[in-house]
């Protein structure tokens, strides 16, 4: 099932970037979260993409994106 809730930061509004087809039928969809940039395929195992079961160690805090450092500063 395709959901537009991000498995990583739980924001809504994911956009569809691509659909894979096999014999004319859509077999999976690649989505991207505009908040945290997580990209995923809706056919992936739940532990990688389902916010209900995905490891919290790899969550991104959508409310505090400032905490992530910027590389190559002058």
């Amino acid at each position, binding site marked *: 099932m395709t959901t537009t809730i991000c498995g990583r930061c739980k924001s809504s509004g994911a*956009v569809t970037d*691509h659909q894979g087809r*096999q014999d004319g039928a859509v077999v999976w969809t*690649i989505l991207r979260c505009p908040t945290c940039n*997580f990209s995923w395929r809706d056919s992936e195992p739940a532990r*990688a993409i389902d916010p209900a079961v995905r490891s919290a160690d790899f969550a991104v805090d959508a409310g505090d994106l400032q905490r992530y450092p910027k590389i190559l500063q002058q």
Partner: protein
Amino acid sequence: MNDLPNRARSISSLRDFLELLEDSGQAITWSDPVMPEPGVRNIAVAASRDANGAPAIVFDNITGYPGKRLAVGVHGSWDNIALLLGRPKGTTIRELFFEIAGRWGDQEAQISFVPEAQAPVHECRIEQDINLYDVLPVYRINEYDGGFYIGKASVASRDPLDPDNFGKQNVGIYRLQIQGPDSFTLMTIPSHDMGRQIMAAEREGVLLKIAVMLGNHPGLAVFAATPIGYEESEYSYASAMMGAPIRLTKSGNGIDILADSEIVIEAELQLGERELEGPFGEFPGSYSGVRKAPIFKVTAVSHRRDPIFENIYIGRGWTEHDTLIGLHTSAPIYAQLRQSFPEVTAVNALYQHGLTGIISVKNRMAGFAKTVALRALSTPHGVMYLKNLIMVDADVDPFDLNQVMWALSTRTRADDIIVLPNMPAVPIDPSAVVPGKGHRLIIDATSYLPPDPVGEAHLVTPPTGDEIDALSKRIREMQLGALS
């Protein structure tokens, strides 16, 4: 296959190399249906368990990517590296090391230029409605990666402040995360050539164009990852090290690229912009953090007809990353050390890009190996990467860990250890106190010279040589014969 050296020198593309590998039983085609996740990862990991003999795997039936081809593990075993160097399967790592070290500085570069219209890489061209997902059968390399990564891209660029200088063109391997249909982030650090170029372009407000080459001459993938001087051309270096010509052409955005690559993505840096990137399962076997990285906009894509997307499995070792860069991390350190200390007899920096290195040396005087270790830390690669150094005598093969453990067990005293605190460290070393800063360890496992009062023990000298080799072979044959 007596013509292996000539055959290796005649390779000009990934396709040529895959053909050579296939003829040698070192490439297989995976035609059963496979899901991008977790199928491709599972198969790549299973193959990389065999560091000595794993074949390259070409997938041609990935679900949702009909007609597309993906290659992994092209440099995924020592046998594949041996064939690239014109040596037979079964060549030892030590022999491969000396094959590389012997080529250092020995050959002339042979560079030729092919008109764009005749370059295979430009057979197909996309300039409108670019969607990288239409071209590349991507998959999540490790399960908590932040997105779909291109892990084996050779990125070519010109110095933005000296764009006409051939030598200052940079070719390096950087990880790229696809950020929507026509954008990607590139991860680098200020000390890498690409990091320098991005910072220079942003400081001066000038355009930085790059060409991302995928599915390349297998020699470039090896040598573009080798730390050489900023003003040395990686193309010239790769050609010299292969002892073979390299064919270049121009990308649509004016950068010198390999004429026979499978795919080239042309892109422009978005000055000053940063996007969230990562995590990515990196070579120390742990995930990088999430950071804001420079972003590039794709302006065009060229590719051969029916292109092969080449990617890599990288993560907790042993992986293709280790066989791809291990020897070519070790050989420059060896060459640079020998300029000061010809007593150095071999360098093994295979482990996690040299986070641990083993150096064999003929001790000139008591404590000499420690001096050599300190010199190793000041080589270009040593500055950031050589974290743990084990020094052994010349009678120990640093590529044979059983011998190294013997030296550690019998020749190391607890006070033969030096800890250098608060040194530079590669930011993704998970043991660093803070990213970019950590401690160094030198273990002197060499024997004792005067004025040390102990001296060398009376060593057992097991028989070696042709007679023992022949006996070993006969035992093996008898063992195999017992099965038939």
